């Protein structure tokens, strides 16, 4: 896969850059350090943000704003009439392939449109590949790297090393086995509830079959391993009855048609009472639940209350069930590994003294006993006589009165959510007793009606009716039992395979996490010499040695000092000053960037030396220029430095003519003028100024004249080596151009008096008597005070000509054919 240099950037209508119809265009050389200087407010940050927006579709600074601040409305330049932003990038592959041009446009409606005029088939994907952590670096990123928690640092480090795919996958994989969401995603609670319910059904059906069998056969049912023999016995009990024998010839137990049997009995009697009797016997069988085991019930209620008391007592020693629930929720939150800084409270955003996830984990330890007691209570309730009897009775048809709710599910829910109390158990018990009374009453009513009918019917047919009804009920219960049995097997198989998966995914998670940690450790170790050497090169100290450490199991990364003036393994965050911390982060980031093999073969650095003094700035730049920049380093990168630092600008300016360095300066006065970029040749700056003036746009033209004059004066100072006082060199204020001009003239006159000047006499006269005074009178003396009202386009065009002529005072025509060159110095022609 080719890697790309950024060789051209064009911006219009984006953030602070209006440039409507006249985009700001910067060219960058792949084989040079590219420096871009811009005074405050002249579009430098907008350039950096333009690249952020192009690669990532968002701007970090705006994304951090509150939604109510409507940050999206500030992406387009406020003065651009179409409110459209256009960012065009030219990317040059490092393998010699054709350039790729990508245009990112943000329409007035906020839609992002990505196209490639050069026909790249997937420009969005290429932008995604270019969106690497190291490609766009600013001071904030370095500061955050040191200040971050170990976990966040480890994660950003993975991204920096091009291992973000691995880190992201690791987190996604871990989320699949997180306890709460796993249960929910795999319906574990639903399946467990279904299993419980099915087991109860199985038990009830088995018991009722057994009861019916005993009723018919007059003996106890043995067990279900002999079910075939038992059903044969039941069938035979009916086949032995003369009235029914013919109807059951060749019929199996499963095939018995009880409607036909009952019709035969009714036919034999031919009585409506017979029909009623059949119905009442069937109804009696439904309601004839096994009598409650009072002793088991009382023991269950007593034990459940005891468990509840133990749980409550245990909660007293903790911060209470609400806090327990909150902590469990917090643990779930952190187990899902959200992108949350664990040094901040999720509820109020306040900064904490320690990582919250560790605190939550420790706090939950005090609830460990409580968790066990809660499980005991759950078992006592869900497997106890009270709950099971409630389910049995509440399932009887029409037992509940209008408006009554079932207590069994209510009790289960309270046990599960931790709100169950003794009162709830008592209420369930009272309700159960009420239901028992209703069952007894109902059975009494049925028995009374049956008794009344039996008085009017022959006894033999009464018994026969009951016998047929019992065999019918036995078959119904057997069928119900078989269905429940099959369901139990299915649910158990589902739960088993889910448990098997849980074990598997946990193993996959550990396997991948361990491998990812080992890879990160190895990568970090391979970087060690690089970042330590660079740190030493920038800070020029040998006895402060940084060392990064990666957790063997987690994602945390520590920043320590292997050596700090003889102290070993001490905290870098605590000991290092801001500039040292910054240098450490820069060393790590740039060392990692150079080893990176991903799509961008460039690094854009935005004001990364804010905390450095001039000496450290110089050393960092030298590190970049001599160690990291391609092709000085064949594996190196293309560097693009954005800066507003005047001291650094002098350094850029000095190197601007050197091979391997390409310097540009942003000029302009937004929002009054467009922003333009100028390299060592200021022709475009001058041409822009003249174009504005000829169009009558005095404000725009005037501001460019100042920049043009400043450029020419600095060019003269540098070329002919005029000594400039240090305060002029280091400051950038409104009187700077006047002071520079004075310094230039004074230096010429001084050398003239000393007889050492290389300029011709006419040039000195033109400088001191004509162009210098004209520039002062027509421009400098008005610019800082009167504004554009004092100027007219013709007079300002005259100033431009005076500036050109002033420069000519320091040049000579080599061959008389217009090949003008600067004097070597004020005292040497060539």
């Amino acid at each position, binding site marked *: 896969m080719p890697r790309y240099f950024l060789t051209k950037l064009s911006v219009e209508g984006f953030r602070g850059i209006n440039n409507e119809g006249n985009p700001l265009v910067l060219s960058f050389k792949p084989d040079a350090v590219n420096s871009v200087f811009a005074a405050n407010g002249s579009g430098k940050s907008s350039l950096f943000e333009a690249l952020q927006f192009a690669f990532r579709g968002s701007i970090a600074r705006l994304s951090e704003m509150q939604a109510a601040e409507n940050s999206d409305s500030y992406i387009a330049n406020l003065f651009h009439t179409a409110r459209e932003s256009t960012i065009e990038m030219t990317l040059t592959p490092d393998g010699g392939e054709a350039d790729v041009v990508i245009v990112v446009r943000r329409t007035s409606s906020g839609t992002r449109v990505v196209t490639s005029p050069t026909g790249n088939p997937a420009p969005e994907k290429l932008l995604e590949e270019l969106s690497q952590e190291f490609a766009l670096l600013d001071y904030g990123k370095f500061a955050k790297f040191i200040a971050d928690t170990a976990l966040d640092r480890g994660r950003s480090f993975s991204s920096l090393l091009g*291992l*973000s*795919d*691995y880190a*992201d*996958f690791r*987190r*996604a*994989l871990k*989320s*699949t086995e997180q306890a709460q*969401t*796993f249960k929910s*995603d*795999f*319906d574990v609670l639903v399946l467990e509830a279904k299993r419980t319910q099915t087991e109860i059904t199985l038990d009830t059906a088995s018991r009722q079959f057994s009861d019916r069998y005993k009723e018919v056969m007059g003996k106890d049912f043995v067990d279900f391993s002999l079910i075939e023999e038992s059903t044969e016995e039941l069938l035979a009990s009916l086949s032995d009855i003369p009235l029914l024998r013919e109807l059951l010839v060749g019929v199996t137990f499963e095939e018995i048609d009880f409607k036909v049997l009952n019709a035969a009995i009714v036919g034999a009697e031919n009585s409506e009472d017979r029909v009623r009797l059949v119905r009442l016997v069937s109804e009696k069988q439904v309601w004839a639940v096994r009598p409650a085991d009072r002793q088991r019930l009382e023991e269950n209620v007593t034990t459940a209350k005891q468990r509840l008391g133990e749980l409550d007592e245990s909660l007293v020693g903790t911060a209470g069930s609400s806090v327990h629930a909150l902590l469990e929720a917090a643990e779930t939150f952190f187990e*899902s*590994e*959200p*992108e949350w800084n664990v040094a901040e409270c999720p509820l109020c955003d306040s900064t904490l003294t320690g990582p919250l996830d560790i605190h939550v984990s420790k706090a939950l330890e005090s609830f460990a006993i409580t968790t066990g007691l809660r499980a005991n209570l759950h078992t006592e309730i869900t497997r106890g006589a009270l709950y099971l009897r409630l389910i049995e009775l509440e399932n009887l048809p029409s037992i509940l009165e209008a408006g009554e709710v079932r207590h069994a599910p209510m009790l289960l829910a309270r046990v599960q959510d931790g709100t169950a109390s003794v009162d709830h158990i008592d209420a369930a018990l009272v309700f159960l007793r009420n239901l028992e009374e209703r069952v007894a009453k109902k059975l009494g009513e049925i028995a009374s009606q049956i008794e009344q009918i039996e008085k009017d019917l022959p006894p033999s047919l009464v018994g026969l009716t009951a016998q047929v009804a019992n065999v019918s009920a036995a078959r119904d219960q057997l069928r119900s039992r078989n269905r429940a049995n099959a369901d139990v*097997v*299915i649910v*158990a*198989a*589902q739960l*088993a*395979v*889910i448990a*098997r*998966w849980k*074990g*598997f*995914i946990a*193993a*996959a998670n*550990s*396997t*991948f996490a*361990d*491998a*990812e940690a*080992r*890879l990160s450790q190895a*990568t970090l170790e391979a970087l060690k010499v690089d970042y330590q050497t660079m740190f030493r090169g920038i800070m020029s100290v040998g006895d402060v040695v940084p060392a990064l450490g990666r957790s063997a199991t987690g994602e945390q990364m520590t920043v320590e000092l292997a050596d700090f003036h003889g102290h070993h393994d001490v905290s870098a965050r605590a000991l290092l000053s801001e500039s040292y911390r910054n240098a450490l982060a820069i060393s790590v980031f740039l060392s990692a960037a150079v080893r990176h093999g991903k799509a961008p073969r460039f690094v854009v650095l935005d004001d990364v030396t804010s905390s450095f003094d001039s000496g450290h700035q110089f050393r960092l730049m030298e590190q970049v220029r001599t160690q990291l920049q391609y092709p000085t380093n064949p594996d190196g990168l293309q560097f693009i430095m954005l800066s507003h630092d005047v001291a650094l600008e002098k350094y850029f300016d000095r190197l601007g003519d050197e091979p391997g360095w390409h310097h540009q300066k942003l000029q302009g006065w937004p929002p009054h003028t467009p922003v333009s970029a100028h390299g060592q040749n200021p022709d475009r700056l001058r041409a822009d100024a003249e174009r504005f003036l000829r169009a009558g746009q005095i404000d725009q033209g005037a501001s460019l004249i100042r920049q043009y004059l400043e450029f020419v004066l600095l060019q003269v100072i540098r070329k002919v080596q005029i000594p400039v006082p240090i305060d002029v060199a280091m400051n950038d204020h409104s009187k700077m151009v006047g002071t520079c001009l004075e310094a230039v003239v004074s230096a010429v006159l001084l050398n003239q008096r000393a007889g050492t000047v290389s300029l011709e006499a006419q040039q000195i006269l033109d400088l001191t008597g004509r162009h210098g005074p004209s520039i002062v009178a027509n421009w400098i003396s008005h610019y800082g005070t009167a504004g554009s009202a004092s100027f007219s386009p013709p007079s300002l065009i005259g100033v431009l000509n005076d500036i050109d002529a002033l420069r000519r005072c320091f040049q000579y025509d080599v061959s008389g054919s217009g090949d003008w060159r600067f004097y070597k110095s004020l005292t040497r022609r060539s």
Partner: protein
Amino acid sequence: MPEFSLSGDGLATELVNLAQAMKDVDPDMATIFEAHVELLTGAMNDEQRKAARIAFNSAVRADLISLSDLDA
């Protein structure tokens, strides 16, 4: 724990190798893992991770239920 290490050659290749290594733990589960693991890639924030997790677990659950039907 199976023998497995990352080479740094790209996640897609690594996941094929991971699925292969996990066959030593449980071949059936590893097959299901391999079939759906791509759903977990590319999630870079909480929201994307949540969506990826739900899609992955849902796909896995369907396969597990089919497998359990065979077992039952």
